[in-house]
């Protein structure tokens, strides 16, 4: 789990920062210092650029579909042809029985055309004649939306519960910790599959929330839910230690309310940890979403996601390997970029980690 590394996060005193930092730190905020460190980390920045490029490509999926590929992500083109180098080529090869009764095998989708077909079928077609490149971009959009969306939900709930548990302690802490334990007791993927499968059949219609069976909110919510303890626990640990610090005592002595202490004092002090966790958990969530969708418990057909694209391609891995390999590469690049950038961000926000790394 990417979140395991977050337990190494430490809080830095000004003295420690000054000792570690190269150059003048006087008058500079911790965030500015972190940015100064981050911009010196070219690898992390490079992967951040890669991630941004992927996000932008996926964000403009609609434009690509309408202006270049001229097809939607779910539009089948069975029985159709397209022009390649001036010739008509079937999108999926034709087959059947001849009038003489001879069987001719068909059903082989066209392979990657790159630039040879005027922007159509750049990465080939699937067994329904759908444009793989278009589905890859739309699938990426869904995967990223779920990955980022679930990370946001997960982070918000984890922060909230961790703050409440650590600040109030007592039975509040006991109750929240036991709920964490309960969720933690299940293997992440198994719990997600169980919830995803159950909800993908009839949707979610409780507590005034109505989500249809194919809604993207379902995998988003499921992934956020199963990962809450993995984010909440380390945050709770940090807040427990912060709560004993002098600045919290000072704020309390000045008559600050509990909410004020939590929001005004504790939250800013764990913001850097939360930010690092956030980037790392997006990567985890994208992988979890791909796994769920691959198993049919995440994004529901015909909507694409990188997981469903791999699932669709796996049965043709021998004859049309691109169907599974291309979305696989997309996942690898996205997760790698997030992880490398997340590590860089952690190094920037946590100089002690950097010092350890340099030793």
């Amino acid at each position, binding site marked *: 789990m990417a979140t395991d590394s977050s337990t190494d996060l430490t809080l830095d005193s000004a003295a420690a920062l000054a000792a570690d930092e190269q150059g003048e730190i006087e008058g500079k905020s911790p965030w500015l210092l972190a940015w100064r460190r981050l911009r010196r980390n070219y690898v992390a920045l490079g992967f951040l650029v890669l991630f941004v490029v992927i996000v932008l490509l996926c964000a403009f999926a609609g434009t690509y579909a309408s202006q270049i590929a001229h097809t939607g992500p779910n539009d089948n083109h069975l029985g159709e042809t397209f022009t390649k180098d001036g010739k008509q080529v079937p999108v999926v090869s034709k*087959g059947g*029985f001849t009038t003489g*009764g001879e069987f001719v*095998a068909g059903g082989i989708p066209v392979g990657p055309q790159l630039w040879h077909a005027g922007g159509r079928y750049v990465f080939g077609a699937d067994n*329904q004649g759908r444009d793989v490149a278009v589905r890859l971009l739309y699938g990426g959009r869904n995967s990223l939306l779920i990955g980022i969306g679930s990370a946001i939900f997960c982070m918000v709930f984890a922060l909230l519960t961790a703050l409440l548990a650590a600040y109030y302690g007592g039975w509040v802490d006991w109750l929240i910790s036991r709920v964490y334990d309960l969720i933690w007791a299940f293997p992440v993927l198994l719990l997600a599959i169980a919830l995803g499968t159950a909800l993908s059949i009839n949707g979610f219609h409780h507590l005034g929330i109505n989500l249809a069976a194919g809604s993207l909110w379902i995998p988003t919510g499921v992934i956020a839910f199963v990962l809450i303890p993995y984010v909440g626990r380390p945050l709770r640990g940090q807040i427990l230690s912060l709560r004993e610090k002098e600045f919290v005592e000072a704020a309390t002595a000045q008559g600050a309310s509990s909410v004020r202490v939590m929001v005004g004092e504790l939250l800013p002090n764990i913001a850097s940890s939360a930010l690092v966790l956030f980037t790392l958990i997006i990567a985890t969530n994208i992988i979890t979403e791909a796994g769920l969708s691959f198993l049919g418990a995440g994004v*529901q*057909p015909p909507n694409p996601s990188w997981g469903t694209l791999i699932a669709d391609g796996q*049965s*043709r891995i021998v004859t049309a390997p691109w169907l599974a390999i291309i979305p696989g590469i997309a996942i690898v690049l996205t997760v790698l970029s997030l992880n490398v950038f997340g590590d860089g961000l952690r190094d920037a926000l946590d100089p002690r980690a950097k010092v350890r790394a340099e030793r």
Partner: protein
Amino acid sequence: MTKRSRSIRFVGALVLVSALAFLAGCGGGGNKSSSGSSGGSNEGKTYPLLRVVWDAPDYMDPALYYTVAAYQLTNYVWEGLVGYKHENGPGGATLVPYLAEKMPTISADGKNYKFTLRDGLKYSNGNAVKASDFRCTIERDFKMDSPGVGFYSDITGVSGSSGYAETKKGHISGIITNDANRTVEIKLDSPRGDFLYILAMEFSHFVPCGTPASDQSTHPIPATGPYMVQSYRPNRSITMVRNPNYNDQIPTMPTGNPDKVEATIITDPVAAYQRVISGQADYDYQPVPTDRLPEAQSKYKEQLRIYTNANTYYYAINNRIPPFNNIQARKAAQMAIDPQAIISGIYGGLGRPTENFLPPGYPQYKKIDAWSFDLAKAKQLVQQSGTAGQTVDVYGPNEDPSKSTTEYLANQLTKIGYKTKLHLLEHSVYFQTIGAQKTRAQAMFTDWYQDYPHPLDWFDVLLNGNRITETHNNNPGNVNVPSVNKEIDALKKISEITPEVNARWAKVDKDLMATYATTIPYMNRSQTDFFGTKMDMSCYVFGVVTFWDFGLSCQK
């Protein structure tokens, strides 16, 4: 409704049998196969072990199973009073006496059947087969709510509020047995021409009295046929060995060539195909994966057989609720579907396009040519119907190729102006879900493989509006055309097949598929049998009922 359900019932005269040549297989499978055998010596052809890759059967208990995966193996294990000749082609639909010493005496009014069991019959555990076992078998079916109990509703004492089907107490009065004389007498409330075929079905296969009325799949029931089930591990394997007490007690069926059959259950067609190619198995039950067909055809042509049995793949559209309670909308949906595109793209060419509900090969079949794929016209019809923009809930199984076929339907309906919501379900719950009215499915993937070769099995079971039910509805499209219902009910009473009757059935087909556009048939699917290099293909026998006859197989 079952996938690849295939127990055979037969109503009417044997004239149908001659039409079944179609079922015997077609296409570029390779050499002609041998003609098979109905019994007798297998000298020189026996071999120690047949290793097959198989599909998961639903059950391995003759009261419960209803899939080809179970039947194709166990038709050599449990037997009935009568059974099918083990022959290639139409001859394979001929009934011969199995446990009965000869075909029954049937009363003039067609309501009384008398059988005498062969002398000295034994189960595989050495116990004698008794006439009363037949009664126990049928009563056990009822006690277990077997899917086959509907076939026995005409036996005296079964139906009605005090009938055995309701009370499950005492005995069925219409089955009179005498163990000492080895006689079985069956009385019917009304004659039915298909009754002998019902007696050949798995639900009529003898099990000993006292067999628990619960699923015995993993505790194999003693066999009466040439083989017995040695072990069954659900989703893993089936092992069959020779029945030590068989002693050629059924001379009308083959003794079987392999001494032992080891079936490994692999449901993934890619893995199954690979296993045969790598020499780890001698036969692949699963269809050769679409994308591997060219390879199979070129590299392993001698080992591949392609057949088309009696089936129809169709989209059911709910005639009861909007938008498809509107005939213009139904016609639009018909025109939005391109059968050849589905067959080519999704099934790799393994199928034949159709607009008929009844498969070709039946004497009642008359080719319908009413529709042509025309999206523009379909869009126009949707506009005219006033249903454009309505939401359509499209249902299908979540495994390919059914999944892709359902996605195709949803996409085509979107193209002609509907909003679609796709619901892909596990196969195990799919048919019961669309068979429940409360689901309100509007467009659905479905298919049908004949239970018995008669139009009743198609039109009465699947499209008679008088048989629509709230749950377990075999007519998920709620097709209900009163004039056609009346005609089906009238034809049901006619057991004699004449050209005039055939023409009336053909009109039923045309009325439902073309005039009222109630349903969208698009394909008669073809399937593959793929063999390892050890197998001697000159012994290949494909029965219209038994499919590939493993008992007659031989090795090089």
